[in-house]
């Protein structure tokens, strides 16, 4: 049976992990590769490097990171952030990234998904969606772009469906309401999207406690759960999370 995945996400700027990492026994806590190797040892199922580099000049550093990752890592990794064109994506895939995640650029030009899926295969293209609950509505969420700064007026569930139709291989779904709240995933949002598409959905945003991961799978019906700070600060280990998921009857790779 296919196991549910646990995915640590690292924010990377100029090739370095930002937001601080509080791991013991790391020679260089800012090195995304060393951190990813540590997560591999803990049985993480894959890792995501989210590039928050401001300028396109610095993209070369991220390409270099992808290249080094393909030399060093024994688990799949995704690079997300800043892709504007198929040429950008090609550079990252050529450097060795298993998958890329596209967000704002895909909203601006949905044909980017179609083109990338055709060029690199559906399995290589993740569409990242940042969604925020519409005030006053019971079950409606709006897509935001540009790192959550700009509202688009697009319905998140409809956009997920369109992304899947255009050839996305997975949806990485972040609840902006929950991100950083430590209150757990927005399970209503996750479930709405998971039921709307026939591709895997990765839940993101809001994890603060151990049981939130199992909730994302059981109540949110997600195929994978993603978190950042609870892992980086050593509050929870991947192993603890997987053991808790297993206790809830969720298939995991222990």
């Amino acid at each position: 049976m296919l196991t549910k995945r646990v995915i640590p996400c690292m924010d990377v700027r100029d090739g370095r992990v930002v937001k601080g990492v509080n791991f013991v026994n790391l020679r260089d806590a800012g090195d995304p590769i060393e951190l990813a190797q540590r997560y591999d040892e803990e049985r993480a199922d894959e890792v995501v490097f989210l590039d928050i580099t401001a300028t396109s000049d610095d993209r070369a550093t991220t390409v270099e990171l992808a290249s080094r990752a393909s030399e060093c890592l024994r688990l799949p990794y995704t690079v997300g952030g800043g892709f504007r064109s198929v040429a950008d994506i090609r550079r990252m895939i050529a450097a060795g990234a298993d998958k890329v995640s596209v967000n704002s650029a895909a909203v601006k030009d949905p044909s980017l998904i179609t083109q990338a899926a055709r060029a690199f295969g559906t399995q290589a293209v993740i569409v990242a969606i940042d969604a925020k609950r519409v005030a006053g509505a019971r079950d409606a969420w709006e897509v935001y772009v540009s790192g959550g700064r700009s509202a688009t007026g697009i319905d998140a569930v409809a956009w997920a469906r369109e992304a899947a139709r255009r050839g996305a291989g997975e949806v990485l779904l972040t609840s902006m309401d929950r991100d950083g709240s430590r209150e757990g995933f927005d399970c209503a949002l996750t479930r709405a999207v998971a039921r709307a598409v026939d591709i895997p959905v990765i839940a993101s945003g809001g994890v603060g406690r151990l049981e939130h991961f199992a909730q994302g799978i059981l109540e949110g019906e997600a195929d994978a759960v993603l978190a950042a700070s609870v892992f980086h600060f050593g509050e929870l280990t991947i192993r603890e999370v997987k053991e808790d998921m297993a206790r809830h009857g969720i298939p995991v790779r222990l």
Partner: protein
Amino acid sequence: MIVVVDYQKGNIRSVARGLEAAGAQVVVSQDAEVIAHADAVVLPGVGAFADAMRTMEELGQDEAVRAAIERGAPFLGICLGMHLMFEAGEEHAEGDGPTPGLGLIPGVVCRMSRTDAEGIPYKIPHVGWNAVNSVPTSGGGCAHKASSARAGTSSGRSVRAGLSERLSIAPAAMGDAPQSLFEGIPSGEHFYFTHSYIAPESDATIATTTHSVTFPCAVRHGAAFGVQFHPEKSSDAGQRLLANFVRFARKA
């Protein structure tokens, strides 16, 4: 020396790295001559069946790989590389009928069903870590009706004509090589998968995995192996499998 075939589709470095970590000397090459004379050949996989076959044919790699296998050089096809070992594939096929593959193993690679036998929906692509279960060596065995039936309907009489010739490569002798790519790896171990198409059932199946259907995830034709999952992305278990292949290649 193990040659990793580069057919311009990326994901080559991780495979080379895994083989090197197992102590192998590795050359990444597009050159048909180099491939044909390799001690062992690894055909990694990303992209679509039809595109990959077209590129390999343009570069003469298809004949080179077949020549290497024919003289008994150990071979490992990964993901799409495993698919290419079969008679034909439906993925991105143009015109009528599926695209002919290397033709070592009979059957047509087809799309994985989105529902199981009871009509319950499954997410496709099949992405993530799944259990790999060994098949008793008596061969065949796994019920794979859904995809076999589908492969049968859309497949190809059009590819049958040239097949008998392509299938003429007999399995090479095994010598005292290890019985399995999975030596030291317990049945049920998890490996990383990412794909939407599956190989058909055949006598070559040595391991299966279950998602919407149960499908062959490892095959063997003499000294030629194929795996649907990505050993280079499967942490300790994957590294073990690559090391088994390297040891096998050394003995052969």
